[in-house]
């Protein structure tokens, strides 16, 4: 299981002394190795001592709550009346409720839309702003500000821009292309899309920076070769840039998808799921179930479902990436 056991099994007695080349570690005696270890690493409990603060905090604020979510999801949780075991009733209530079904649907639309939109826009920005020049660095830094700004601030400024009258900034802008004023986050028809725009606006610069970093490593001679072959800009992107960036893109897409599943703050602050449930996502629904309706058991079941979905998606991606290699 660990390297020590492997070494012990493989170990054959050999004269100690001369430090082996990197490849010969396994042939040293386990005893000698242990002494060496003890000198370099100290007693066995030392690493655990260093890890203890992190692991204790994880236990208290990650693992125990997760366990508790699991327990609660099978209970009718009423802190002042006593909890009762209810089997899978909470899961049935949750999965059967139209609110949850539409929340899952909205979450999926939002995750896919934001991920794809951010990637497309981020890629475009990266192509436009790649380079070492100081002025490009300046533009990139300015464009990156949405990523570091707190979500709460972003939500406030977009609420103002989404002001539903024709004086609202967003309405003035779409007015330039002669569109009628929109209700944005205030109408069931547009609320989810309005939230998505904010997500793309904040996600694109992030993708841009990572892609810019990736672009530098693209072999320049390939571009030159492609250009000599008469490939246009789009063809060069298609056949040189994208294949070279594939690993980066895959990682960005997965991260965004996993984050997208648990989206909360922006929706809570922009629309709080409204109007009329039109932008309700899984997390805002869980929050409401737990802290507005007091259905803690059903809310916990929602958390468990969200957790399982996250784990499955993560494992799926890991598996796909491993096979890819």
């Amino acid at each position: 299981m660990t390297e020590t056991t492997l070494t012990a099994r493989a170990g054959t007695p050999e004269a100690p002394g001369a430090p082996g080349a990197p490849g010969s570690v396994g042939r040293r005696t386990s005893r000698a190795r242990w002494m060496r270890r003890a000198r370099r690493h100290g007693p066995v409990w030392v690493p655990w001592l260093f890890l203890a603060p992190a692991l204790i905090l994880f236990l208290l604020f990650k693992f125990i709550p997760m366990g508790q979510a699991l327990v609660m999801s099978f209970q009718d949780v009423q802190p002042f009346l006593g909890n009762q075991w209810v089997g899978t009733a909470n899961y049935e209530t949750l999965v059967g409720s139209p609110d949850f079904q539409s929340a899952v649907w909205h979450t999926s639309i939002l995750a896919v839309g934001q991920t794809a939109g951010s990637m497309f826009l981020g890629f475009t920005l990266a192509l436009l702003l790649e380079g070492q020049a100081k002025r490009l660095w300046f533009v990139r830094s300015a464009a990156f500000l949405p990523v570091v700004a707190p979500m709460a601030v972003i939500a406030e400024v977009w609420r103002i821009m989404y002001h539903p009258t024709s004086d609202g900034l967003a309405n003035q802008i779409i007015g330039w292309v002669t569109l009628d004023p929109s209700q944005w986050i205030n109408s069931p028809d547009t609320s989810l899309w309005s939230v998505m725009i904010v997500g793309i606006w904040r996600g694109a610069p992030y993708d841009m920076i990572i892609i810019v970093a990736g672009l530098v490593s693209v072999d320049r001679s390939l571009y030159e070769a492609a250009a000599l072959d008469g490939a246009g800009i789009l063809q060069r992107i298609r056949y040189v840039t994208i294949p070279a960036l594939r690993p980066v893109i895959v990682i960005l897409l997965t991260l965004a998808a996993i984050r997208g599943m648990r989206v909360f703050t922006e929706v809570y602050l922009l629309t709080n799921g409204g109007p009329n449930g039109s932008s309700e996502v899984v997390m805002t629904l869980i929050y409401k179930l737990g802290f507005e309706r007091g259905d803690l058991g059903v809310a916990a079941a929602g958390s468990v479902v969200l957790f399982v979905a996250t784990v499955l998606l993560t494992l799926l991606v890991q598996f796909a990436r491993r096979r890819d290699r």
Partner: protein
Amino acid sequence: MSRVRRAGVNGGDGLDSALGLGTSSRPWIRALNYAVWAIIIVVFAGPLVAVVAGAFSGSRDPSQLSIIPADPSLASFSAAFDRGVLRYLANSLIVVGFGLVFQMIVSVFAAHALARKRFRGSAIAMLLVLSTMMLPEEILAIPLSQVLADVPFLGFNLINTLPGMIVPIVAWGFSILVMTEFMKEVPAELEEAAKIDGAGEIRTFLFVVLPTCTPALGVIGVFGFNMIWDQYLLPLLVASDSSMFTLPLALRTLRADPEVGLGVVLVAATLALLPAVIAFLCFQRSFMRGLSSGAVKG
């Protein structure tokens, strides 16, 4: 990942830009470039600049945002201070200050064990850290709020206290993993030499390993700051009345209060925005380094 990392090293070679965009010498293309850049800056930075401008503006029209303050005045600031905005700022600063210091200490300690030690169970420890990345506050919101009211084994009640917003974010998997990655690259010889010189465990750690990791400390510092400063759900669960609000929480209540004008909201937003922007600008190098190494895992 290695691909991305390498990018930082030999990035300066060759053409300025992969596709030759942005470097053309033809004047009209240059002009077009500047126009595109201006649009990008206005679209992405403009709204945030408008927040700051609005805080200094005397105008009260809720639908108007402008990059230049109309009728500049500090009236909104004094109104905001009357509304307790300084209290919210103080809460935010306390949370980020203590949270970040403890978070970095915990991360460095854990990373030291994970990166520098070979020990029985290290794989499990690593997996435990990794698995916390799948347990963000969002997923744990419901049980976490119960745990905070009655911390297991200890029985503390952290509800409506600042420690309630600090303690749960002190151990952060991302920070530990990034630190571990960096620490792995410190050559083992350094440490061994120190040991041979008779330095103890702690001394070696503090005076030999840690100084070689200052760039990494910059990375986890700036990311940790950003993560804590942007916290929303945890303070929402912990704070039950406005005396414990952080700036992000306060924004929503201020906005909902009909007696509070837009100016006050924008002042609070400015105070929430500026530290994040300043931290980014000062530690930009660390930030970019972290993005190209950490984003892959995070």
